[in-house]
């Protein structure tokens, strides 16, 4: 009748305590041994991030607005989107959030770049290997659902507080869509087209480069778009380990009930999110225009 009791036969308190202490102890030993090495390994990334941030925060603001507007035009070819971008940036500047916003833009930009550099190859590899897919999928599930602070504090113990651990947290949270959508996009490419390409003597690389990737691009763009959105959603969380930008005033506002301050900075995050979203979506649509209509 032991099974009919409400108390689950858990491991004994002592065993659990010993387990926790052992794992914590091993982690501490690991940080002592390898923390400094890891920190050094991430130095180039940190310097790159600082450089981008410096460019955005120290350049004259009209120049930054002009460059961002030009980028928006290059990607979207839409006056409406460019106008929206410029107006949003000017409003943000007017309300005194320029510096914080630029720091956030730098962070999101670099995080997205890292996510793409890592995510695209992983997505491509997954579409070719069902075994890899079986391994990567559950990992992505963990990355998207594991409560962030569970890995944030260990990362802080390894790398200290600041931008790099923040960047790692953002990338962990934001990379799954790039991987999943790249994989999906490549899988969805018409088999007939691939066979045709093979019949014309295209090598594996040529088929990927000239047939699969172009056809998958709209789907990949949707993934990139999602990655950017998730990265922006992490801004406030990342500021909890000392990442500078719009997250810090939001945190300050939350714990002091400064409603206006919270709302303004929150809206600035929304503003950048909409810019990034519209621009990347328009870019995705433009890519699609040159492609044959999908057969249905």
């Amino acid at each position, binding site marked *: 009748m032991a099974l009919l009791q409400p108390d689950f036969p858990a491991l004994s308190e002592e065993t659990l305590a010993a387990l926790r202490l052992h794992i914590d102890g091993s982690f501490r030993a690991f940080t002592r041994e390898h923390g400094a090495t890891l920190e050094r390994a991430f130095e180039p990334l940190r310097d790159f991030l600082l450089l981008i941030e410096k460019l955005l925060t120290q350049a004259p603001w009209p120049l930054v607005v002009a460059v961002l507007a030009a980028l928006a035009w290059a990607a979207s070819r839409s006056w409406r989107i460019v106008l929206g971008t410029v107006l949003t940036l000017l409003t943000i500047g007017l309300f005194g959030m320029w510096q914080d916003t630029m720091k956030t833009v730098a962070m999101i930009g670099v995080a997205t770049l890292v996510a793409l550099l890592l995510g695209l190859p992983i997505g491509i590899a997954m579409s070719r290997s069902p075994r890899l897919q079986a391994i990567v999928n559950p990992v992505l599930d963990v990355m998207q659902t594991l409560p962030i602070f569970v890995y944030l504090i260990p990362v802080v113990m390894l790398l200290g507080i600041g931008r790099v651990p923040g960047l790692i947290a953002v990338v962990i949270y934001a990379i799954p869509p790039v991987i999943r959508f790249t994989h999906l996009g490549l899988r969805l490419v018409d088999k007939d087209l691939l066979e045709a390409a093979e019949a014309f003597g295209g090598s594996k690389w040529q088929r990927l480069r000239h047939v699969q990737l172009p056809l998958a691009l709209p789907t990949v763009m949707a993934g990139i778009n999602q990655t950017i959105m998730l990265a922006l959603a992490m801004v406030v969380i990342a*500021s909890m380990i000392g990442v500078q930008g719009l997250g810090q005033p939001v945190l300050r506002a939350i714990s002091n009930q400064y409603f206006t301050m919270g709302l303004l900075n929150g809206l600035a995050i929304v503003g950048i999110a909409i810019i990034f979203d519209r621009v990347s979506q328009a870019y995705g649509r433009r890519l699609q225009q040159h492609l044959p209509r999908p057969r249905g």
Partner: protein
Amino acid sequence: MSLPHFSILAGAAALALLAACSKPEPATGPAAAPAAGTQATPCGRVTVANMNWQSAEVLAHVDALILSKGYGCEVELVPGDTVPTLTAMMEKGQPDVAPEAWVNAVREPLDAAVKQGRLHYAANALPEGGIEGLWIPKYLADAHPEIKTIDDALKRPDLFPAPEAKGKGAIYGCPSGWTCQITVGNAFKAWDAKAKGFVLVDPGSAAALDGSIAKAYERQQPWLGYYWGPTSILGRYAMVKLDAGVPHDPAAWENCNAKLECLQPAKNDWARAQVSTVVTDRFKQAGGPAFDYLNKRSWNHQTVNTLMAWMSAQQASGADGARHFLKTQPELWKTWVTPEAAAKLQAQL
């Protein structure tokens, strides 16, 4: 309103007020179930506020064990928080005891209630009070005996390299949104730390601040930053508080150092916060020897920090910590209780 607790605590006042007076949580073991049928409980039923931070939690459990096993009270622990618990005590006379009340947060209404005789101060639970300020690790203080004050530390930006600003020193500040963020920011200005080559690093959260200390300690790196005690961090990682070099000036503090809009703050030391045990009038009258116990019971930072460090290392609960304390430090708690209570308690450990 100077210690870090309060800024976060005060906000939840209304919510936790409900929690404080509606949800009693039985104390551990025999405390919850006094010998059935015996009405030999001279002090009767007593509710003890179990505040939601570690030092207060362990003190509440120590009180619960001593009051129930030593004095035969029927103890109930109720969850609490500074402002809601003390407000409930003032307004409703419940709970009976707040073992570790940081009274600065509710100074005015509390003093009024004490004047009217509704509440009473018992012992100063922490005679040294709550302390805050800038700290360095002990190993660093030993290696650099010349660093005693904040000014000494500010002469050495090279010793505390900032991870993200080359050639600058770093002062780890107070987590975003806490009251201390303002006082630390003003101290940074007052000591002119920027001109001395330092940046103020916002750790974002208390967890990240703790993480940065743990990281420095594991690798014996230098660290300079804001912290407060008593805390388990200070028990686990021996730290030395830097002398401000100036006394605490309450008037300047209220007018400038504690204000965000303070333009030209002057150097000012952080105050020691008064930490007292507060009891209701009902319990003072009915408690008898049990009240005498609360009137004597106090411990110092060293004891609390060490105990909390043990708890953190074992990942133990407040109840475990209290039992550990009673087992290992009888020479201290025996000075608080009557010989009979000590004998009874000793027999049940």
